[in-house]
Each structure stands twice: as C-alpha cells, then as structure tokens.
C-alpha cells in the first residue's frame, strides 16, 4: 500500500475506495513508525495535515476533484509555507516562519494537494549527501548506514520509503536527480524558467529549479503539470515557450525511432562498474525497444564541476547575505557592536559547508579575481550550453548515469569536499545549460539503486517523459521496495 503510485491513489480516491483523510493517516502512521530512524521529515504537524485532508474530502464531495485532490505531497524544507516552519535545515533559520507561500505551494494548494510536512535536506541545499543538514543526516531506506543523496535527500527518502507518495525537491546541481537515483525513485528537474522560483529560498538563482520526486514517471508528469507555468512575479519565469501536454507525453511513451545520445564523457574511468553496467544495459534495452543509440561528445563536461563551483557559490554568497541577524532568523546573544553581531550571527548560524561556499563565492567575486574566476566560469558555461545545442542537432535525448556511484556511507566523504563535489559530476552540466533532466531507477548494485539520467533540449520535457515512460513500462524496478520492517 505505501508504495502505491500517486496516479493510482488518485484513481482510488476518485472511485471512493479511500478518503484523503484515510490515505493521509496511512502515511502519517508510516512517518510515525519510520521517521525516527530515517530522519526524512524535519517538521510536520499531524493535526494541520489531517485538517487539509478533511478539507479536500469536503471539497471533492461538493465540487469534484482538482488535479491533485487529496494527495499528500511532502515538501522540501526550502519552500516557504505560510503554516509551519521553513528552516532550510539551517540553524540560522531555526524557528523561522515564512510570511507567505511559495508560488508552487500555492499551485499545490489550488490543485487540492495535502501539504505533507517538511523534508530534510542539506543546509541551504548545499551538499550531495544530506549530511550538512542542521537537523542531522537523513538516511537511505535501502541501507540506513548510507546517505540518501542530496540536497533533496529527505524528499527522496520519504518517497522511496513509502512515507509519502510524492515530494517536491529543488535541483541546483543535481539535488533532485542524484538523491532520486540513490534512493531508487523518479526525479524531474524542469527547464530553467519553467517553474517559478518565488518563495523558494535561493541558493544559486541562475541554477535553482523546483521539480517533482515521485515513484513513477507518470506521477512525475502529473505533479509537473501542476508545478509548471509562468509566474509574472518571477522575472526569470518564462511565458512564451512551448507548453507540454503532460498526459500525452507519458501515455504514448515510446522509444521507437528515438535517437538517444550516449556521451563518451559520461562513461569514465573511476565510475562504479556496477553503475556503468546498469546504465549500459538500460541503453541496450532502449535499443531493443526501437531507439537508435548515437555516440556523441560533450567536450566541456570535464569543466562543469569547476564552473559550477565558481558560479553557484558566487550567487550564494550574495543570496545568503540577508541572514545577518537584523530582521529575522538567528541572532547571536549579546552582540558587542554591529560587526560582532554580523560575524557571530553568521559564524554560529551557518554550518561549515555553507561557510565554505560563501567564502569561495566571496573570493571569486572579489576585485582582481572576478575576471579569472566568475567571468571565466560564465564563458565556460556558454561553451557547455553550446555542447548540448550541438549534440541535440544529432539526437533527440541524451542518456547518462545520474551518479557515478551508488549511495555511499554516512561520513565517508564529509572530510573531503572535492570528492563530495564530484558526486554531482553527471548532473551539474544540465543546470549550467538550463536543460530539463530526469532520473529514474535502472537497476541495483549490491542492493543499492542506480539511476538513469535523461537530458532533453530546453522546453522538451515531453521527450524526457516519453522516453522514461517507455523504459519504465519495459522494466519492473518500481516493484522493488526497501525492507523497513526490521528497523522499525
């Protein structure tokens, strides 16, 4: 039951087999049983959640169902919500209550969804393992000694462990796709500009994008159909772009005649052999299903991580300047003067990874270094974007591993930021190029899930969904679920 898809729940709610209150209770009970060990949720208010479910049941009885009527959706702690806390898993926002709903939260409410608690994440979304969270690491339901990936680790864990049927994540350098891969679920990062960023606590403004984390491709499409759309209050949200027929994209999922690019730079030395094997097998299957595999090159891939770790921290250094103890959030005790208040508030409020990135970004933007770092990174970003544009002249979609490795052990990489940064090596270029990307399960290595990443041209989420739906239809990875009873 807890591993039922969002689409199936939707049908069962519509058929009157279950009410939203009952459905919500089912998941709340799962949270009560397993969250203590998994630490997927950092904040939830049972009464408030059930109240929404009851309201949804009443709405359905009176007016009929909206697109997500009665369906629980877990929310990454980075989305501002009017009710409850929004803490971005940082001590500097401990106890912070946002005065408004993020635009996508409003869309979820309007679609009848039940906002199902705030999920764990790396502090300010800065991390690839969920270990930088101020509320402690979230755990991988397939092996609780391992990380769930990050930064949207709590959302991935919640869906994979059946604590929620779906969740919202955000993806700045792979933060939806990498944890989705490591937890064996589906994660979609839409094209930059497709989903409003208003009310999402900013990490790197030119890269951040929200998206669904779900069990199935069809679920991802359903949730995306609600989240995507122009928001005039976000100047980077785009209006005049092709709209997607979300239903059609997954209903007629087909790989016949599709040209799939296989970039040589994504099958590299040092990546896990098991992961490589799973992805290659997946591509073979795609070929059997009628796709044509085309070897391509994305020559600037190697520079993507370095480029990202200049641009993202630079933007973050400015985005996080507002946490100064003046208006909201944490303020140090008994500041001596203004400078003391600033330095101690920020020193005590931010964790080490966030500080590392603020310092990196501040340095990269400093006078005398700007040209060598920030400006150069912007130029490389253009080259990376051009790589993809050229590739998409030959192919319809690109398929790669989502992560070079499966979930690693908690603490394994925390002392080595560089190795940690490299776990995003296959996802980062997609953000730099602003493209849509999707990760879906494509196998297991030693009982740990492996993710297959699809990349499409800008605004062509339909291609991702179509390819992924076809692959999903031909495999049964979804039927595998983690064994949690032993740890409860």
């Amino acid at each position: 039951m807890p591993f039922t898809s969002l689409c199936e729940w939707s049908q069962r709610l519509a058929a009157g087999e279950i009410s939203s209150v009952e459905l919500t209770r089912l998941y709340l009970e799962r949270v009560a049983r397993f969250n203590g060990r998994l630490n997927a949720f950092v904040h939830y208010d049972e009464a408030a959640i059930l109240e929404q479910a009851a309201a949804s049941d009443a709405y359905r009885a009176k007016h009929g169902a909206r697109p997500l009527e009665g369906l629980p959706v877990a929310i990454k702690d980075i989305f501002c919500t009017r009710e409850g806390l929004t803490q971005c898993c940082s001590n500097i926002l401990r106890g912070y209550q946002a005065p408004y709903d993020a635009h996508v939260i409003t869309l979820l409410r309007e679609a009848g969804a039940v906002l199902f608690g705030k999920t764990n994440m790396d502090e300010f979304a800065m991390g690839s393992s969920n270990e930088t969270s101020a509320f402690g690491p979230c755990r991988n339901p397939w092996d609780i000694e391992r990380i769930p990936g990050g930064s949207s680790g709590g959302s991935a864990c919640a869906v994979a462990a059946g604590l929620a049927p779906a969740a919202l994540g955000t993806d700045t350098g792979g933060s939806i796709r990498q944890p989705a891969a490591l937890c064996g679920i589906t994660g979609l990062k839409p094209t930059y500009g497709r989903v409003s960023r208003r009310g999402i606590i900013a990490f790197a403004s030119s890269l951040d994008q929200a998206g669904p984390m779900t069990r199935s491709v069809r679920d991802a499409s359903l949730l995306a159909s609600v989240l995507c759309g122009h928001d005039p209050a976000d100047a980077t949200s785009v209006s005049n772009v092709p709209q997607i027929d979300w239903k059609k994209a997954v209903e007629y999922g087909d790989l016949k005649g599709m040209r799939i690019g296989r970039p040589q730079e994504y099958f590299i030395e040092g990546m896990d052999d098991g992961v490589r094997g799973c992805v290659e097998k997946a591509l073979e299957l795609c070929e059997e299903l009628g796709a044509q595999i085309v070897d391509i090159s994305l020559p600037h891939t190697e520079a993507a991580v370095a480029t990202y770790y200049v641009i993202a921290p630079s933007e973050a250094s400015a985005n996080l300047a507002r946490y100064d103890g003046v208006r909201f959030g944490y303020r140090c005790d008994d500041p001596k003067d203004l400078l003391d208040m600033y330095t101690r508030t920020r020193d005590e409020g931010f964790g080490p990874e966030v500080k590392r990135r603020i310092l990196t970004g501040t340095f990269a933007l400093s006078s005398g270094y700007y040209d060598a770092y920030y400006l150069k990174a912007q130029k490389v970003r253009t080259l990376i974007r051009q790589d993809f544009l050229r590739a998409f002249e030959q192919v319809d979609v690109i398929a790669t591993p989502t992560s070079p490795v499966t979930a690693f052990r908690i603490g394994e990489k925390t002392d080595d930021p560089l190795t940690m940064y490299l776990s995003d090596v296959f996802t980062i270029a997609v953000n730099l190029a602003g493209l849509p990307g999707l990760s879906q399960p494509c196998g297991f290595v030693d009982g740990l899930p492996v993710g297959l990443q699809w990349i499409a041209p800008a605004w062509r989420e339909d291609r991702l969904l179509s390819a992924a739906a076809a692959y999903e239809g031909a495999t049964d990875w979804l039927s595998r679920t983690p064994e949690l009873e032993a740890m409860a």
Partner: protein
Amino acid sequence: MSWEVVIGLEVHVQVNTKTKAFCGCSTAFGAEPNTQTCPVCLGMPGQLPVLNMEAVTKTVLTGLAIDATINLESRFDRKNYFYPDLPKGYQISQFAIPLVEHGHLDIPVGDGEKRIGITRIHLEEDAGKSLHEGLEGVSHIDLNRSGIPLMEIVSEPDMRSADEAVAYLKQLHQLVRFLDVSDADMEKGQFRCDANVSVRRPGEPFGTRTELKNLNSFRFIKQAIEYEAMRQIELIEDGGQVVQETRLFDSSKGVTRSMRSKEEAHDYRYFPEPDLPPLRLDREQVEQIRRGMPELPGQMRRRFEQEYGLSSYDAEVLTQTRELAAWYESLVAAHPADPKRCANWLANELLGRLKESGRDIADSPVSAQQLAGLLDRIADNTISGKIAKDVLDAMIESGQDADAIIEERGLKQLTDTSAIDDMIRDVMAANPEQVAQYRAGKEKLFGFFVGQVMKASRGKANPAMVNERLKVLLRE
C-alpha cells in the same frame, strides 16, 4: 602659478514612480516607519524582484533629454555590502551596462554656456534609513525607502569651480522636475549629490581626487567644494600629497573630514543580478518615450521671449519650474492683452510677496484667474497701478477677488471729467500764487498741481486724466 579645481558630480535622483523599483509598495513620503514594505523590499528569503517599467521609462526620458545614448540592452548587477538598512545584503544596481550613457547638459556660465558631459545614468534601488538620534544604545531601521528607484547621474570631471558645479546641479534639478521624473525635493533626500574634487596646475594631468559626501543643499555643495579645494591646495603647497579617500562634509563647521581611505573602500563584488534578465528595449519603445517628451526649460525660455515678448531675465525667472511657467501661461490666457504686464505682476509683485513669507507659487492664495482680474482693472483704468499693489496685498491676505476689494474699500479710480475738473478748480483756487507763476512760465510747477489733485482725490483720480485736464485748465 594658479590652481585649477576639477569637479565631477554623482547625483542620486529619486524617480517619482508610484511604486518601488522591484515591488508594488508605495513610495509616498512620510509614512509611519516600515508600513510601506513587503517581503520583497524587506529581503525575506525566497522573494524575487520584478522591474518597475515606469522607472525605466522615466530614466530613458531623462537620457533623451540630455541627448544621451539609450542602451537597448542593459543589465542589472548586484552591489554587495553589509549594512543594517540594506535588507538583502546587496543593492540591485547597474554596473557594467547602464541604461543611459554619453549625454550632456549645457549650463549657463557668465554670458555664455558650457557643456558638461554626463557619463552615464543607471537605475538602482535605494536602501532604507537607519535612525540613531535620540536612541540609547540601539538603532532603529525604517525600510519604507528600501527599494525606491533612483537614477544615479554621473558627470564627467568637466566643472572647474564650485559655482559651475552648483550651476550644473541647478540645471539638472530643474530638468528632472520639468520632465516630471523626480520631485527632486532636496530636504526629503530626493536629489542627493556626491562630489569628486581634485586640484591641478592648468594643463597638467588630473590630481588625486577625494569624494565628498553628505552635500544636501546647493549652499553646502558650494561650501564643501570650496573648502576641499583650498584644503588640497594648501596641502600640496605645504609639500604634502592628497590621499584618495571619501570625506564627509560637516555643515555645522563648514569643513570636510576623512570618512574612509582607499584601502578601507568597499569591494562591492559586482556581478550580474541572476534574478533579472537583461533589460531589453526596442527602438519603437524609445521613440514612444521620446514622443512624450515635454517642453524643456531652454525651449520654453526661448518661446516665452518670442511669443510673449519677455526680457530674457523675466523668461528665465518664469521658467524656473514647470509649475511657475504653467501658472504664468494660465495668467496670460486669462489676461491676454498684456503678457508683459502679466510677467511683471507675477515675477515681481506676487512672487516677491510670497517669498517674503517663505512660500512659492504652489502655495499662492491668489489664483491666476484672480490675479488676471486685478490686471484687468488696471487695464480698464478702474484703479491705478499703485492702488493695485495695495489691492494685491489685500487679496493675498483675504483670498478675495480684486473687484470685491476695490468695491468694499471704495478704491475705484475717479474718471469722471467734471468731478476731476471740480477738484482741479478747487486746487487752483487754493493756490493762486502758484497758478500765476505757472502761467508766467514756471512749468516745473505742473507736478505740484498733479500731486495736489491726487492728494485731494485720495489717490483715486486717474493720473492720466488729471494730467490732461490740468493742462487744459491751467492754460485757460
């Protein structure tokens, strides 16, 4: 050998949009602290800016008025620094590619004009206000001003004296008010100036400059520049060197004081604002803004001279502000017979009286229609110019129409020939000796008779008629 002062000015002009630069909050002045704020201008997590196109239009209009290049693609940048009244920890500004570049303003210098280059105008947001006065150990912050759009207008170092700097500022001040892009009220901080000042021997390269801040009136600007130039000259003449630094003008002592050195200067770490796409305008948009260009002060001055036959001085005075010019034109419309009389009575009489009580034309208790009513009575000889001045005083005091005052006080001019003749005869009868002397050729006495008759009429006799009838009757 003489010294030359070199001055460049940076002026922050508050754009008079209804709402802030990047959110929908009101820009009205004087509200209770922090009542005109929202999550965007408070810098709450997750909030995003949306550009106010009215601010763009007004900046473009200003650019067109100074004959500048309008960049069809400009960009916003973040200027990073920490200050409690800067909620986001950065200011959204334009650094690399401003909206407006390469303009100029011609300022009056002596009998001629001098062209001052304007390097750029960029659009940015204002910060809030920190309040320390009257507070013990704490500061208060008012963020009503946070996010209000500003144009930063940066001149070339083209000015060579404090007087030129003030002339430039006055010209610019007049221009932005004419364009209705700013209320430019200096007391409300809507027109703020920083000055870059250096000195050199004529013909030599520029000297090291200092930046002067806190210059919030034309008088202080002149004082501060003159003080600073002298300070630099004395420093160099004593064998010292000018240090590049920011200096604060202390208006109570009339001196400038070091605020921070070049080494302590902020590194603002500018980079492109990722929350705002580049600002793109097309030619048609710019042309449409150009079509909305009002008449500029210089054009209006020349038109006043030609159309109304005004002296260049009067034209200058009457085009000081758009309100005053509009007032003058409605006065002329109501009293079209004599635009010069209108100019005299407005510029000298009404404005003079208002100024005495510290008011300007906007506060005038007498409307243009009412003043025209008074001028009509002069024109039709109901009252003399002299009496009219008394009537104007009464109008300012009471707000009444001229006719009512003339009627009430019985000030109507005597124009009845027989009545005037009677008075003249009485005066002649009372002064037979003078009559005899006059008739004997002492024509100087004519003025004496005029005075006597006017006195007898208590000023109400029409002077021209008195003259005319006196000449006839004295000769009889």
